[in-house]
């Protein structure tokens, strides 16, 4: 895989997430995708990307991303690192905790996207710490 193409895939992914562009987002992905979002159980099969994105957009009012760097390995994996600044709505849930008021959090964000032979993403792992948002939602931070 070409490193420039890999970076472009990540940039397009983040742009689509930031702007709630479902069409552009799903165009990057294969028909069957496994999404592993932080502490959530894996979601595999048709509709996984749509479920992930729509849930994320439903819980948030704005989201922006900064991309520091990307890298590729020999097994079709793209890794990226940067940060995410996300504003959650009042009522957004984090397990048993519901946000008492809207809040904004900035988190380091690492992604792994696996790309199939057609150049489409068939695995997406989203890595970030999941403590700060819960504390902010509960009004404890």
């Amino acid at each position, binding site marked *: 895989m070409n490193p420039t193409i890999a970076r472009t895939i990540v940039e397009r992914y983040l742009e689509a997430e930031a702007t709630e562009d479902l069409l552009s987002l799903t165009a990057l992905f294969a028909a069957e995708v496994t999404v592993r979002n932080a502490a959530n159980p894996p979601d595999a099969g048709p509709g996984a990307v749509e479920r992930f994105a729509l849930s994320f957009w439903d819980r948030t009012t704005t989201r922006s991303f900064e991309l520091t760097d990307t890298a590729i390995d020999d097994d079709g994996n793209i890794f990226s690192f940067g940060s995410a600044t996300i504003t959650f709505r009042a009522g957004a849930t984090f397990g048993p905790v519901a946000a008492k008021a809207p809040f904004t959090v900035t988190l380091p964000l690492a992604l792994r996207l696996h790309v199939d032979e057609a150049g489409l993403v068939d695995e997406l792992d989203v890595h970030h*710490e999941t403590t700060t948002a819960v504390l902010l939602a509960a009004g404890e931070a």
Partner: protein
Amino acid sequence: MQEARLNLITQWFEGLNEGRSDDVAALFSPVSHRIKNAAAPEQSGPTAAKEVLSEFLTRTSARTFAVKSIAHGMQLSFAWWIGELTFADGAVIAGHPVKPFTATVEGIDVFDFDENGRITSMDIVHQTTTVAIAAAANTKEA
């Protein structure tokens, strides 16, 4: 350069698995560096890694990290890992003093290096919910 970085990253994980905090701390720039371990506050300075490692190796009685992939970008290097962490008796995890328990966590470590090949910046990125839930379930009775 990539081979040197690969070697250093390998030493990082091997050192963690074997509990060799001084060896692992020596992988970092002695001038200054920063390290952000998951949800913990970022620490910086010439002894930041030593302090973070000391605390981690005290909290955990055993740790086994298996590296799934390492990749190098223009600036940063990435290591995707899965780890089995055994937390020590009496360790305070997410505010809970705990009985020993083991949790599996997966994450990505992100490294930046100086011109001498030492780590100047490191982010340890992983979800922190699994360990917090396990800690609550394994809280020591007062």
